[in-house]
């Protein structure tokens, strides 16, 4: 499945969330990740994140698409990061 992850967390926990995100998804913009992920790894990702965030204060949202068939992406301005397999 394809996941878009957006997060809004306290400054002191930001680096932790960033480094966990990078293990599973591609960084696209500040506080935004996206990418293809397996069901098992998605559970792992959520589990790892819930260990570092403060549940009373932080917010993380996942937009989940079963396939990218209905996804259309548009960009304005610079493209900061994108998920490609040819680098």
């Amino acid at each position, binding site marked *: 499945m394809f996941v878009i992850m957006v997060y809004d967390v306290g400054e002191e926990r930001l680096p932790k969330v960033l480094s966990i995100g990078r293990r599973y998804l591609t960084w696209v913009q500040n506080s935004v990740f996206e990418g*293809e992920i397996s069901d098992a790894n998605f559970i792992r990702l959520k589990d790892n994140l819930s260990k570092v965030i403060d549940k009373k204060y932080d917010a993380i949202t996942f937009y989940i698409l079963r396939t990218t068939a209905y996804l259309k992406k548009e960009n304005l301005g610079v493209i900061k990061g994108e998920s490609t397999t040819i680098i």
Partner: protein
Amino acid sequence: MKKTIYIFSIGEIKRKGNTLCLIKENGEKKYVPVSEISSLMIFGETTFNKRLLEFLSSNEITLHIFNHYGYYMGSFYPKTHYNSGFMTLKQCEHYLDYAKRLILARKFAEGSLRNMLRNVIYYHNRKGGLSSTIKFLEDASLKLREARTVEEVMAVEGQAKEQYYISFNTIIDDAEYHYEKRERMPPKSRLDALLSFGNSLLYVTVLSEIYKTHLDPRIGFLHATNYRKFSLNLDVAEVFKPIIVDRVIFTLTNKRMLDPSCYMEELGGVYLSEKGRKNFIEQYEDKLKQTISYERMRVSYQRMIRLELYKLEKHLIGEKEYEPFVTQW
């Protein structure tokens, strides 16, 4: 499905923050999600250290290296995680017992032939003029059944392939890709360059898939096992070459997706340039992801390769006889 990452950039690959990081020449950092990668294919000039290899090994990622001309140079094949003495013994048994080896060799050649035939029939229906090739390939399938040695099987397959490549002159519209003789080391024509590059990509894809099964890539059946090479991946790749590599080539050439800047001439041979390789890989990856229906399931070609290996495992342990995958169209 885990992805294959192709690296063309110059720079350093590092383990950083428990994930992979590519630091390009200009200092730009590119992070790659480690848990969604199955293999790395390295074309560019990169440096890496033992720490990275350890990290790849623990994440079960195979690393493959290609040289300046796009030739496959070698792999870092991590400590196999699916070790099975039983399967290795069975594989050896099927290699050492000549009758059993011949059966498998014949099956691989048959798969290859029948898939070539599908391609030729498809283009015969669209463009015509290939009936003699169809006849030749059908005869070759019959001859295959009579082959008594693995060498004979290879000879029949080789002759069929020669005829099949001649039919490319009808299939491909562009006169730039005229086929006369298959030459490798170095490839002499543009078509040779495409075939060589495509085949080596497929060998590596199959090798990466073998890593995910209990099979040992060193013991092949059609291609003899020798002292230095992986050979099982060559066997299985034979079945898929016509439907993956050749079809990618037809798309690239008939849709005119390659221009002269996609090639480079060096050392008396024709090779794909970086741009050409990237174009090829894009189409190749699309092809691997393309799904077909197989036994009422939607299965990608990449997955088909793995299923083929599972079928082979079943054959080796004597559960079900191996039948090569033959495309329906």
